[in-house]
């Protein structure tokens, strides 16, 4: 599903953020990306979204080499990769329903389908009946579920979560993880960058640890392994 072939990224300021990375992530996997700040986690994620262009090597996403993907084709790559951020990134002047529908409108989905699918995805993330609320009327955990719902509404095969629990308390974090696990069980490949030791240790999923732009560990059933 995602393959890094000898990928390096050197920024203009000389920082080597990714150093000859080779890694393959299969369809349906749930992978944690861990590592200290500045280890290259963000660059790793951004390069899959083609927000960052790598300096050398190839990245294959969903059987497509995106390294030389034309700028104009990038939107079509992003439709295959849902993204969830630490800060939710919801539009404050739109309701929950509108925030999610927005992602479908962009792809030109007919209104009939939008009306049908938004309640379904709201049920999946456990927000049934909250469609008419505005983001500021919801708790942090609920807002993050809205953002997950939005990223999943168009059924992308891959979901990238960049510290999705970073702003949430432990209980709420677990609720989010349950939602992500449900999505993963439906067949979506999930890549989650995190600093949350407890979650990584308990989930018992694959862990890729990055340090200084290199893969320090890659374990099928891994642990967080840092003292923070």
């Amino acid at each position: 599903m995602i393959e890094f072939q000898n990928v390096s990224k050197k920024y203009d300021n000389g920082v080597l953020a990714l150093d000859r990375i080779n890694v393959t992530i299969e369809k349906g996997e749930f992978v944690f990306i861990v590592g200290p700040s500045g280890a290259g986690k963000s660059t790793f994620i951004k390069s899959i979204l083609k927000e960052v262009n790598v300096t050398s090597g190839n990245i294959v996403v969903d059987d497509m080499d995106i390294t030389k993907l034309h700028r104009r084709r990038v939107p079509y790559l992003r439709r295959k990769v849902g993204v969830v951020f630490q800060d939710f990134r919801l539009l404050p002047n739109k309701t929950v329903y509108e925030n999610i529908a927005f992602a479908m409108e962009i792809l030109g989905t007919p209104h009939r389908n939008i009306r049908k699918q938004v309640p379904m995805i709201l049920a999946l993330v456990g927000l049934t009946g909250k469609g008419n609320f505005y983001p500021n009327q919801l708790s942090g955990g609920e807002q993050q579920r809205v953002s997950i719902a939005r990223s999943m509404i168009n059924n992308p095969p891959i979901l990238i979560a960049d510290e999705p629990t970073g702003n949430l308390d432990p209980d709420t974090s677990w609720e989010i993880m349950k939602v992500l696990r449900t999505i993963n069980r439906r067949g979506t490949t999930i890549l989650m960058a995190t600093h949350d030791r407890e979650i990584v240790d308990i989930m018992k999923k694959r862990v890729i640890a990055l340090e200084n732009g290199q893969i320090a560990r890659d374990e099928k059933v891994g642990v967080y392994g840092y003292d923070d």
Partner: protein
Amino acid sequence: MTIKPLFTLKQALKNLWRNRLMSIASISSVTATLLILGIIFALILNINSIAQSAKDKFDSIQAYLVDELPAEEIDSIMKKIEAIEGVSEVKYESKSDALTKMKSQWEDNGYLLDGLEENPLPSSVIIYLDDIYYAQNVLERIQNINGIEEVKSYQDIVERLLSITEAIRKAGVVIIFVLIAISTFIIHNTIKLTVNSRNREINIMKYVGATNWFIRWPFLIEGTLLGFIGAMISTGFIKLMYDYVFKAIHSDFYVFISAYVVTPSVLMKDVIFLFLVIGVGIGALGSLWSMRKYLNV
């Protein structure tokens, strides 16, 4: 991709209203640009028209003949002139032809000429040129022919007119380009305000996989609308101004040039087209420019 034109238009109007100060600034700058363009355009059009009719009228040279020249001599003079390079046609105008022509030019006052005992007008040869370019050469050659008393040409006037037209045209183009650049810049700034305020939305749109054109579309409408409104206002102004000037010129005093002045309806047809194209163009360019930074992620 479903683009809802009515919704987008409403949204654009709402945004323009929200930033109304900048909107007004943009519209005024487009209006001012187009007004100046319109004035220069009207000037050029009229001078062109005058120059053209002057050229049509004066691309001939009239050579007056010495009185009482025998027919053979006139014949030989005409042959000599015809042989000169650049001469397309030579016509003889007898004394009586000249008188008839004068009478018709004087119209109602023609009867005054009936009192003449003797025809005072000279007979002449009218020489038509292939092009005004040959005028100087032909003039010099004719003056040396025996039997020709005087040569009259309008070359100087025509040349001066043409050089004035050229100067106005050149200066106009430079001024217009500077003004267009300024207007585009102001619209660029206006649209940037809306783009800034919707930065977050644009960012999310990009992550969800919206194409650049999908994102650009509403802003493009906004900018185009600014240009369009400016074009409409300036068209109205130009119409009012030109109607006024046209009427003023048509008051008795200027009658002799009024025949060459372009009528408002002819001018407005060109102006509307020109203003719409340039106004909308400035608007579109300004908004695309302001989007550039945000789309390069």
